[in-house]
């Protein structure tokens, strides 16, 4: 290979962990393998779920797999997460979630009692979101061929006719609202997994966002797009919207809230909270005229009481997210290519 021969970025013979990190490697994998092969208009939109019409009814359909380790973490467990994750994906399409499926891949030797506990919390979670789990599947794999338990959930919901959420609606001047503190989920799971003892226990923010979204859609008809910043964190979601909408985004670091203990953990490990997963937060792009009243309503909801306008869509920097730092300088907030790792130095 010589200098004039650029190395294609996806030239990997094997899947690496980084392909699942939600960064740009994940994006490339989706583009180059899945979208290219399955190739259709609905998939190409790459929304959290697909929205389509059947017999005049606007439906949203989505699926997600949950492979979290540990399966119980401060603030939740894999079962609850599997319900809320899919409910939230539907909510981000503006849909009222109705029905879910649940598929389990269980490793031989898994404790029956633990399974029961997970399933019970899925039932409680489903009740809380007003959805029903109506179909499912179970597979058991040999010991060592899976990591305890994997859960896949798919969900279907109805989108009100007047609701149309998509990055293509984003316009210059739109305000960006974030519904609360960031990085709680990622840091809670990390500290539970790695046994990192932080002074106070950091809890995951896992929660269903469908009720909040319903209220928001009632308050404003001018919400352009919603996203729950899960894998890859706030930075990944904003980048995805900026690139799909070909819009420039500026966010203000001083407006982004972090719990003290989460901040301390990030400092200690050298991790940037902007790239860390959330499971109960959303970002919303809304016209400037509606931003304040929406913010006031959102703050009344217990899941969004720390809502804040964190930025806006601007005419410059098309397709990019720019971070105004705490000290007033600016830099590009890029999509990370690989999962962040704790620092050594």
């Amino acid at each position: 290979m010589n200098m004039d021969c650029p190395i294609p970025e996806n030239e990997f013979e094997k899947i690496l962990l980084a392909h699942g990190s939600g960064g740009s490697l994940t994006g490339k994998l989706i583009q180059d393998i899945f979208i290219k092969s399955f190739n259709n208009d609905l998939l190409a939109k790459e929304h959290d779920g697909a929205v389509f019409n059947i017999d005049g009814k606007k439906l949203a359909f989505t699926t997600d797999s949950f492979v979290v380790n540990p399966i119980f973490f401060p603030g939740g467990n894999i079962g609850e997460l599997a319900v809320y994750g899919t409910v939230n994906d539907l909510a981000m399409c503006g849909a009222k979630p109705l029905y879910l499926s649940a598929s389990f891949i269980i490793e031989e030797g898994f404790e029956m009692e633990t399974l029961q506990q997970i399933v019970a919390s899925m039932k409680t979670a489903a009740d809380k979101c007003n959805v029903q789990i109506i179909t499912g599947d179970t597979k058991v794999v040999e010991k060592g061929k899976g990591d305890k338990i994997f859960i896949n959930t798919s969900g279907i919901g109805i989108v009100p006719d007047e609701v149309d959420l998509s990055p293509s609606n984003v316009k210059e001047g739109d305000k960006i609202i974030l519904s609360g503190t960031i990085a709680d989920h990622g840091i809670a799971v990390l500290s539970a997994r790695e046994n990192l003892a932080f002074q106070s226990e950091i809890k995951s923010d896992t929660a269903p966002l469908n009720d909040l979204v319903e209220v928001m859609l009632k308050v404003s008809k001018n919400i352009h797009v919603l996203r729950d910043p899960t894998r890859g964190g706030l930075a990944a979601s904003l980048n995805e919207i900026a690139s799909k909408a070909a819009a420039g985004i500026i966010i203000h670091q001083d407006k982004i809230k972090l719990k003290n203990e989460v901040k301390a953990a990030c400092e200690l490990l050298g991790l940037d909270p902007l790239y860390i997963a959330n499971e109960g937060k959303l970002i919303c792009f809304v016209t400037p005229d509606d931003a304040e009243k929406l913010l006031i309503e959102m703050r009344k909801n217990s899941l969004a009481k720390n809502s804040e306008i964190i930025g806006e869509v601007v005419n410059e920097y098309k397709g990019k997210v720019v971070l105004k730092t705490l000290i007033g300088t600016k830099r590009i907030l890029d999509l990370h290519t690989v999962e962040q790792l704790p620092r050594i130095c």
Partner: protein
Amino acid sequence: MKFLDEYRDAEKVKILVDQIQSLNIPPINIMEVCGSQTHTILKYNLEELLPANINLIHGPGCPVCVTPIGMIDKAISLAQKKDVIFTSYGDMLRIPGSKNSLMKVKASGADVRMIYSPLDAIRLAKENPDKKIIFFAIGFETTAPANAASILTAKKTKLTNFFVLSSQVLIPPAVQSLLDSDLIKLNALLAPGHVCTVTGTKWCGEISNHYKIPITVTGFEPVDILEGILISAKQILSNEHDTVNQYKRVVTKDGNLKAQETIYSVFEICHRNWRGLGEIKNSGLRIRNEFSHFDAEKNFEINSVTTNEDERCIAGEILQGLKKPNDCKLFSKDCTPTKPVGAPMVSSEGACAAYFNYRKVNELV
């Protein structure tokens, strides 16, 4: 988090920037030695606030970047052995060796695990008596105490399946070698706060005296770095060359004596090859003979590997401050964090990764 927030305070930053701007500074080169400082500079885009005459040069202070390629190849060879669980800090997994990386051999089935502290490796050794746990100990004076402590713990708990591959290096000899080389004219140094927490500031005093260069022991927040720059610039203007401790809230003159004692009870000084910099005398730490049963190099047959660097990578010049990452022809084209050609693009403390991740707005086309 008041402790940190006051060092990121926009008002304080402004006052410092005004003070720096008001000095009539001739063109000067200030090297920040530590990779974490490089990251703060890029992450907060501090250069946007500084006069053009101040040229910040990024030093060799990225522990992952300077780990010799031969060591990485050794690590990879060890990781592929039967019944071995190979453990390492995260960034080491992605570093390219001659042919492979630990991450790639992991994807091919080797049992490689990322850990947060050497104590995790000790725990693994206790939990897996039928496996051999090898810990890849890299880094500067900052990681050496914990790495040494893991060997002491292994001895105390009579572990027989715990081994350490030591590639520890020391900062003062590397700084001296840069100042000796004369390839680049440095007018001041920002010494790495974390390293000095362990070592104390005496060595800085000796270097500033000998080389007649001002050294400021500096922390890692924007206010720290700007203070470090202001102190350096004032010294240069008044022709002084003292060591000043900006990071007093953490660093003392003597450093952490207990940590130093731990390091030298387990390790002894040796010559070490630095990736990109070549051999630097007395710049490494190897495991003392009395602990040789924990030394991976002495207890495993390591396949002889012929190592070769990708010639296109100019990491050596970057680590010496002779060039900046965007001077490299491969930067952000053929070399990205996904497909790194050299170590500084992989490590979270590496200069190339910092330039890649924290691009400036004016670089948008």
